[in-house]
């Protein structure tokens, strides 16, 4: 193989790997303490289509502040106290994009936040995706099934998050019912018995004071 061909093949491989590396999706669930702000950064190339989706799973009123900034500091997306949102944008320039979640408005509730940051399209299945022929019918059927299954998995994720929300509320309710019922029963007993003895003490005191005044 001629040296020039070897170098060219190497360069092509590098370019393909770079293209593959440019596409990624990060799905992360993390806990945001009260009065805290957590930021994530990602380096994005110009012209890449990106999607940021977030949802609050547990905590308080299930809301969080979100802010997305481009490398120049220009705010691309800013929402306060949102429970769920999805934002798509195309990177206008190269650089580090930053997005932050803030729970600074809350005084004592931790929040669990899920976000899915998709950068670019999914990497192709094969490294040598520079095909000269079009896809056969079987292959394009496989591709469309793959896309459909991806959206099924996506819907499943959202369903799981909503179910987690509902379940955490139900479990909260369960423990709250137990503690408050026991507390109320105790208060009821204490107040009833206390009332009787307080009333008795009114009558006992009067009797002693009248006798003292008399003599």
């Amino acid at each position: 193989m001629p040296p020039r061909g070897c170098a060219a093949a190497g360069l092509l491989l590098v370019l393909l790997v770079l293209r593959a590396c440019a596409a990624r999706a990060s799905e992360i669930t993390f806990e945001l303490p009260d009065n805290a702000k957590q930021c994530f950064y990602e380096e994005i190339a110009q012209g890449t289509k990106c999607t940021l989706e977030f949802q609050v799973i547990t905590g308080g009123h299930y809301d969080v502040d979100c802010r997305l900034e481009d490398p120049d500091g220009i705010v691309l997306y800013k929402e306060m106290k949102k429970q769920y949102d999805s934002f798509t944008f195309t990177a206008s320039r190269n650089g580090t994009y930053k997005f932050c979640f803030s729970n600074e408005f809350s005084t004592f509730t931790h929040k669990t936040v899920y976000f899915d940051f998709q950068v670019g399209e999914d990497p192709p299945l094969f490294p040598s995706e520079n095909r000269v022929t079009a896809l056969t019918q079987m292959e394009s059927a496989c591709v469309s099934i793959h896309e459909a299954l991806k959206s099924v998995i996506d819907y499943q994720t959202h369903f799981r998050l909503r179910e987690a929300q509902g379940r955490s509320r139900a479990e909260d309710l369960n423990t709250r019912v137990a503690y408050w019922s026991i507390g109320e029963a105790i208060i009821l007993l204490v107040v009833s018995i206390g009332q009787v003895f307080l009333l008795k003490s009114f009558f006992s005191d009067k009797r002693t004071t009248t006798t003292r005044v008399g003599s």
Partner: protein
Amino acid sequence: MAGGGGLRAAVAALVLAAWGAHGLYFHIGETEKRCFIEEIPDETMVIGNYRTQLWDKQSEAFLPSTPGLGMHVEVKDPDGKVVLSRQYGSEGRFTFTSHTPGEHQICLHSNSTRMALFAGGKLRVHLDIQVGEHTNNYPEIAAKDKLTELQLRARQLLDQVEQIQKEQNYQRYREERFRMTSESTNQRVLWWSIAQTGILILTGIWQMRHLKSFFEAKKLV
């Protein structure tokens, strides 16, 4: 030789490209612990890749790589039992497979003594967590099993469908738990309401009888 030089340059560029491959990053303090939650069905594989960079005060930038910097990775299963607890270097890859469905907690913290020298040291951590069918490396599977393109696509679809099935099973398990919790709440509300009404009536009766005998003794009634 020009060809060899070109190939070496290509390999070097590939290595550099692989370094930039960990996209998402965040900053973490010296002894700060950062935890991430993964809610997954059972028998699901999770692969995490991370890379750390230390903030250098002199150059006011993050160093490209810092050997000697360690990260401790701890993974707990839904019951709180520790599944994985290991120390890795400044760049590492951790893998675990879930055996019980539910919320697994992945915690990372740095316990490097070198950072104590840099007061207020900041650490940049690149993190990438892949779950389930995203952990499969298809070009590798194709090479190992010698699959044609169509066979590989079919394999990918099968993996995806398997993941969907696992998630559906997990969904059934979660729904059962939800139903049990709701039934328990229902029972508790019922019995505690009856109990409180009973206590109310009994203490009312006791109050009246006690006060009546008290007033009769005091000759007020």
